């Protein structure tokens, strides 16, 4: 059954902009316009405030947990143009690194797959995307893609680490050749794919379909199949699903998931990459699932007896 297992009262003093569970689903990080980042222990339906991270000087837009093999690391980005990477050591959270290389609000942060080590992509309103790589001994290597999106980048999302064309027998004598790729969406209405080649980031693809700002992009997690899937949502109310079966990653086909009547703010994939959660300006969250014949259907409204998710949202609101 779809059921609410926890409702966390964050006691943020202003609007919340993001809430992320960690890898194991035991901790919740939230960030808000009140300039703070909070971490809650939410195991067994509880909500214990673990940390209240202060350091940003503007609304904090997004937080991202790093893979736990690197320790407990959280990145946050803010309107104050800063990206702060926080690390828990001996139970206390401290700043591990502060990146101030953007000239405008940083709107999105996303950690790369653990196979690449600690690598963080940051998208900013100054149009640039920064890639921060941890090189050991508190050193971070910075690579910047300037003018990635004219007017600003709103979202970044990494591709899962899969070997391109892994179905094809790898030459057994060579190291698995993971290619670093991520997707970004911006105010130029474009969705762009980026790829690292010989240590340099290059624009790999430019996906055009939206007619207004792209608000969020999400690269679906891989279950090992050779298909890549990306969801993008926009101010124009449309959510598109982009798929690519081609191992080289050159041919992307687009499918309209749905045209909403309002801005679509965010998209998020389930762990198996077959359910997409979409949140819109109408304050509703809908879940979409691809059927066996490749059609996307809204399941949150139709799943009988399982409680429509959007309905639950409304109930929650009324209780407040």
């Amino acid at each position, binding site marked *: 059954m779809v059921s609410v297992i926890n409702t966390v009262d964050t006691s943020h003093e202003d609007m919340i902009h993001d809430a992320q569970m960690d890898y194991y689903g035991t901790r919740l990080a939230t960030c808000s316009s009140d300039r703070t980042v909070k971490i809650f222990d939410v195991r067994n339906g509880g909500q214990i405030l673990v940390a209240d991270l202060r350091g940003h000087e503007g609304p904090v837009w997004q937080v991202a947990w790093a893979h736990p093999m690197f320790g407990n690391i959280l990145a946050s980005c803010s309107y104050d143009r800063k990206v702060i990477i926080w690390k828990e050591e001996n139970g206390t959270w401290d700043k591990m690194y502060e990146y101030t290389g953007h000239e405008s609000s940083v709107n999105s942060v996303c950690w790369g797959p653990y196979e690449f080590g600690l690598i963080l992509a940051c998208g900013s309103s100054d149009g640039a995307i920064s890639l921060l790589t941890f090189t050991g001994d508190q050193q971070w290597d910075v690579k910047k893609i300037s003018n990635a999106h004219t007017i600003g980048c709103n979202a970044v999302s990494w591709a899962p680490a899969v070997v391109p064309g892994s179905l094809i027998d790898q030459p057994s004598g060579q190291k698995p050749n993971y290619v670093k790729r991520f997707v970004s969406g911006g105010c130029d209405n474009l969705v762009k794919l980026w790829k690292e080649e010989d240590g340099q980031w290059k624009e790999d693809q430019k996906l055009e379909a939206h007619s207004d700002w792209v608000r969020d992009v999400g690269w679906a997690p891989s279950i090992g199949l050779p298909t890549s899937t990306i969801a993008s949502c926009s101010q124009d109310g449309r959510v598109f699903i982009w798929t690519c079966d081609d191992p080289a990653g050159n041919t992307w086909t687009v499918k309209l998931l749905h045209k909403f009547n309002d801005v679509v703010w965010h998209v998020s994939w389930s762990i198996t990459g077959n359910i997409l959660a979409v949140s819109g300006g109408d304050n509703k969250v809908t879940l979409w699932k691809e059927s066996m014949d490749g059609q996307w259907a809204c399941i949150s409204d139709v799943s009988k007896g399982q409680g429509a*998710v959007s309905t639950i949202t409304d109930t929650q609101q009324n209780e407040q």
Partner: protein
Amino acid sequence: MAARWSSETVVVEFRDAQATAMSVDCLGSHAVRHSLYLVNLDAPSEPSRKMGRHSKWDVGTVQWNPHRSQAHIFAASSNQRVDLYSWRDGCGETHTSLQGHTRVISDLDWSWFDSELLVSSSVDTYIYIWDTDTRKPTVALSAVGAAQVKWNRKNPHLLASSHDGDVRIWDKRKPNTAVEYLAAHLSKIHGLDWHRDNEFVFATSSQDNSVRFWDYRQPRKYLSVLSCQVPVWKARYTPFSSGLVTVMVPQLRRENSLLLWSVLDLNSPVHAFVGHDDVVLEFQWRPQKESRDFQLVTWSRDQTLRIWRVEPQLQKSGLAQTLQQEFSLVNLQIRNVNVEMDARNRSCVVSAHFGGQRVHLVVNFPVRYPNNAAPTFQFVAPTTIPSAMKTKIQKVLMDTSLQKVKRNQNCLEPCVRQLVSCLESDMEDGPASGPFVLSNPVAPPLQAFPRVTNTYGSCLVYFTRPITMHRSAPPTEPTPSLSALSAYHSGVLTPMKMRSESQNTLRLYSGSPTRSDKDTVSISSFYYKERKLPMSASRRWSVQTLHDWPKSRRFKTKREGAEYSSRPIKLAGKVIIQEISCLLPVHKALGESYLNMNDIQETCQKNAAAALAVGRRDLAKVWALASAATSQDLSPDSDPDTETPWARHPFGRHLLETSLDHYSQMSDVQTLAMLCSVFRAQAPPPDCYSLYGHPGSRLHSRFPSYTSSSVTSGSCSSTSDSIAATWTTPEHPAPWGESSPDDYRYGNQSYTDPRERERELHDMNKLLDPANTLQFDDFKKSYGEILYRWGLGDKRADVLKFTAGPPEPHKGIFGLYCCHCRSQARGTQCAVCKRLTFQCAVCHVAVRGSSNFCLSCGHGGHTGHMMDWFRRQDECPAGCGCRCLLQSTF
């Protein structure tokens, strides 16, 4: 626009009349004036009949009975008395008098439902409802200073009265007290008129220069307001839909004071009736005998009575907008589309560019538009779209416009939107490289409000804005595109400001409280707070002020001081974590209970039972099938000549592959990985045995074993080394010496012995296609990740035991990486950290002198230590599981 609206048909002057009141009867043939002149409106120029009155008082109000059966009756008030007259065949007589009021009567009104009922209001503090048969007031309503009284047109029991700036709604069955009380205007109300179709709605016109529209069920706020520069004498709904006629009290007598409005658009009047030289005292609508049209009869202080004919078409269609109005109201803020409108020539040019295509479309509006007359569409240069496309678009546009004009509706906006969607859909088909025009940077972009976050494991996390926060912009308002923004503001300005501006204007019509104009731009101002405001409208409140207080303490104290004793308003909503595991194809419960044992039959049966327990009946069948397919009787014979292997049977590999395809489409990585593991266990590849002896323990070390302890603590930083380390597991014994990697490829292996080749082919007859081994391993790895998230590290290791994997490449001979800084090293000293590169696997001291290393695992150390170790052991001292003695020569 004037000419089409009305034409003045009749002007009659009555020099000596000095009339103060006028009424048009329900059949539309008579008007009554001072000293009771009766004018036959069918022949207004005929001399009017005069009816004598014996009273020193002027006639206050006159009203004909609106019921046909009583159409010859009219009532006139004269000081404190109501006189009823009847008029038949050109001569009238006093019918009766209603006496009861003790002071002058201010207004009277016949009931719309009961021809006997007349209501009168007087300054004697009473409103009487008279039964004209009995000539007695049946109901007395006590109310000070009633200036007007009007029956509701839909509800026979309801009436409204105005008292200075207030309105009271009465139910004649409950005469004790008013049903509703509305503080409608700040100054005296001159006119009160019920809506003709809506029981609850009425309009008031007042000295305070406004007409307000009310629903008496919401007495606190008006529905909308029509602001005028001058006091409004009367405002009455038109008998045809959605119109309103107002009479102003202009500052200069000669100004036009008689205006027709559409209640749907109160920005500007639809029409001004030009003709009277002085203030219009009274106006009435007169039904026509032969048609359902109405004429407007007006009586002015200039002593003329005028009859105006109003365009019947327009009456029928309601107050449809003229073309000019349509142009001024049309919302065409569409990207890449520009519309130049020329109302004078009744045409407009739509220019759009999509992708590489340019479209110029001329739209011509016929004179009768939109009255069942569709505009014409014509493509002009430099349109670049192909002619087939043109035809298609033209057809779509014609259909759209016809649909609209048939109902007398405007069609420009829907047509342009159709055009855009046609072009857009065309663009999706063809290659598109649209030059998007981008304007100045606007920072920051609005960030999100309700946000869904990662559906980790089996949870969906999201939050919503609190109930007190609402979008300041109505959802139908198109979100501002950049071009729209830059048109309003240049440079750095956020969209919010614009939204709040448009909000203010929109509010005017929606009637919700307007917000302070001093809004500062903030993120929160995208939403505004809606609170139940106290009755006084002056206490308004905007979010922005709150937002500017950075410190919570100040926030609180200020709030407490500001007489809001209620709980603090929450700006942050709650974060909701929802269990959605039922929607996912993978199940944690199954992850826990699935087994991977050596006894495949038993494993399958137990897994089937586990699947049933979580309600996956399909999986129970799959496991039953797996059990059957892995049974011993079907295992391939070692001798290739005995029989066709089961894998070749339709129920063999084909069946399995179909199932795998099915679960791939469902994204059920759990089932995929488990099936692959089981079938791999059933037919372990020969090289596993030959090379590693016991494949399980050997292989799973290739994947870092996350232990359950690290899982529960939520930290596993200790494992980072194990991943970063290079795992070297050779597929084949690497011969010492030069060899190209290609030699290790399966495909390039040359079969010298034909029997060996046949055996190799026979080995391919496993249920799982060996060609897809890598794919199957990917399933297992992905599933392993999920198991790890669930905290099932042991189960993960169980699954990963069965990966064949692409063998990690052999790294070469001497450790390629410095053991300290992990940078690539050549020679004994690392070029980066200047330390010695190699460490002895036995004594953990850097090796400088004589050393030996295993060529396959890369471990080794001081020659002496190695010699000692391998004298007693055959496995690598580093614990990597490599059988170094077998792999290479020490």
